């Protein structure tokens, strides 16, 4: 099947793919925003970011599916773990190498990625683990959409609004934005960057936890979950402009639409190939991200 075929003969399938892409975009945007927040403030790409979310997914799986906690409580535990992981990564790994060359910082979190991936394989094997929910599938005029995706999208949007308010309306949020604009000047103004770094890492970790809670109701978790969703998350961040929140938000939807529609029109790999190829092309047209100001 090709794209033209799809448009002409099966517009309903196309619309369904587009809608699913939109819903996937919400969760991807959340992950990208968390990563972008950390990058904007610390100038470090946490290659390990999606793997942290994966650990939170495992925790939610075990609390809900094995120990029988209610889903909301499990999700809260997952989010709490996200905060702890965010702080731990910052204190144990980033702090000692804050002034090292960027490649070393990137690789230190990359080493952590190897560690988490293999430790998860060691502890929980490569089995796919799923939280079983009996949520209905909704039908809109012939299109089928799973209710869990709809909920995930709604919560993702709410959390992003919350993040926006946090960054614009609170004192520490303003400080975070100030640091991401100019690290040196912020320290000169007498602010304590270490505190801002810690809050940022905690919030970034928390967003990974929220994303984990929204992902676990749609996908099963396995040790290579981070490898599956990691690259696309980085691409979204770069496409939107590293550190640019609004850009990441829009880029998430562009990428998820391409993946979803490309997946239906050709194959799921081709969906990703087109998304990554488009990413490379767009980088050449707008190196600073799609919403960067022209220099």
């Amino acid at each position, binding site marked *: 099947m090709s794209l033209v075929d799809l448009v002409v003969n099966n517009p309903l399938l196309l619309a369904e793919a587009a809608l699913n892409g939109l819903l996937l975009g919400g969760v991807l945007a959340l992950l990208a925003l968390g990563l972008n927040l950390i990058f904007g403030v610390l100038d470090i790409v946490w290659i390990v970011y999606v793997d942290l979310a994966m650990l939170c997914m495992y925790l939610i799986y075990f609390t809900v599916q094995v120990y029988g906690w209610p889903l909301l409580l499990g999700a809260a535990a997952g989010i709490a773990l996200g905060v702890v992981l965010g702080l731990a990564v910052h204190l144990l790994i980033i702090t000692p190498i804050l002034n090292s060359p960027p490649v070393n910082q990137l*690789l*230190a979190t990359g*080493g952590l990625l190897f560690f988490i991936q293999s430790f998860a394989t060691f*502890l929980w094997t490569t089995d796919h683990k799923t939280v079983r929910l009996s949520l209905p599938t909704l039908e809109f005029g012939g299109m089928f959409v799973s209710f869990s995706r709809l909920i995930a999208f709604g919560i993702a949007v709410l959390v992003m609004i919350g993040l926006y308010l946090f960054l614009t309306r609170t004192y520490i949020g303003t400080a975070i934005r100030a640091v991401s604009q100019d690290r040196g000047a912020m320290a000169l103004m007498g602010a304590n960057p270490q505190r801002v770094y810690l809050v940022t890492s905690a919030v970034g970790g928390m967003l990974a936890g929220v994303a984990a809670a929204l992902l676990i109701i749609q996908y099963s978790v396995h040790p290579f979950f981070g490898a599956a969703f990691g690259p696309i998350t980085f691409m979204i961040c770069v496409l939107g402009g590293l550190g640019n929140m609004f850009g990441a938000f829009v880029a998430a939807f562009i990428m998820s639409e391409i993946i979803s529609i490309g997946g239906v029109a050709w194959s799921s790999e081709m969906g990703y190939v087109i998304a990554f190829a488009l990413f490379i092309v767009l980088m050449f047209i707008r*190196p600073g991200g799609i919403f960067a100001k022209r220099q």
Partner: protein
Amino acid sequence: MITRVLGLALLAAVALIPLVPMGGMSQYVLHVVIQIFIWSFIGNAWSLMGRFGLVSLGHGAFLGVGAYTTTLLWNFYGLTPWLGVFVAVAAAVAVALVVAYPCSRFGIVGHYFALVTLAMGEVIRLLLIAERDWTGGSLGLTLKSAGDASFLGIQYTDKRVFYYGAMVVWLLGLWVWHRLDRSMARAAMEAIGEDETAAASVGIHVSRFKLGVTALSAGLTAFGGVAYAQYIAYVNPETLSGVGVSLRIVFAVVLGGMYSLLGPTVGTALTISLSEYLRVKFGVHYIGMAETIYGLALVIFIIFLPAGIYGSLRGLFVRKRRAPAAARARA
């Protein structure tokens, strides 16, 4: 002078390894050392770019393009890898230029460059999986057998042939590194790595040097990919082009130290020995344990030895030797 003699003695010792009777172990030892040679060569190729601040996280793309080109040409058209390697290197250089030219033209550096190359690696990996009609998808592809010893197919069951072949390849990589290190290009590239605008303002042709180094690095990496595919006689998108492979190359080089001739070799020897040791130690009982320790070791090494192991040791050694000389000069 002393270092040169020492180096030659060491080289002679390495060359004699296959002749040492080791009984049942010899095949395994040779296998490990061959892998060290090939991956050191690839690490060396990566460091040609990496040392000048062009940090690529997508060298798996070049490995994949190289290895699959010769394998497909051999399996479907019976073209000998001796000729196929030229096509493979040309293809990898073409891919590199398609990505690197705009990168250089539009000033994509640092994190952005690393992530663009990461995307490039993913594109190649996913294309290899998507084109499953020829490439076998994620199952990979086995080289069509050409008998026990075939010069045309570069297939030998005797590991000693590959041992000396891989050693020559490795030495070739070191020679290229040394040549670049002594050339004008090195000074130009260092200036570019420090500050592109300043380099351009003193008359350095920024794009030309960057593209040259990138093409050289990509071509050599593809060559390494071909060597690896010929030795293993099997290609797979994950083991050649995955993010994991690209990161492993970078890890080995950074661990060894990318600013010295033997850094990539030391780093590769260390990471491969470590992962082989852990694999043998834990084997099938604790799946994932070996990699877990490997990952942890990498994090610790990067935090505590940022200049790389060989780089740090060498720094210590050189400083000690220079100190008395400096004292004499002052007196």
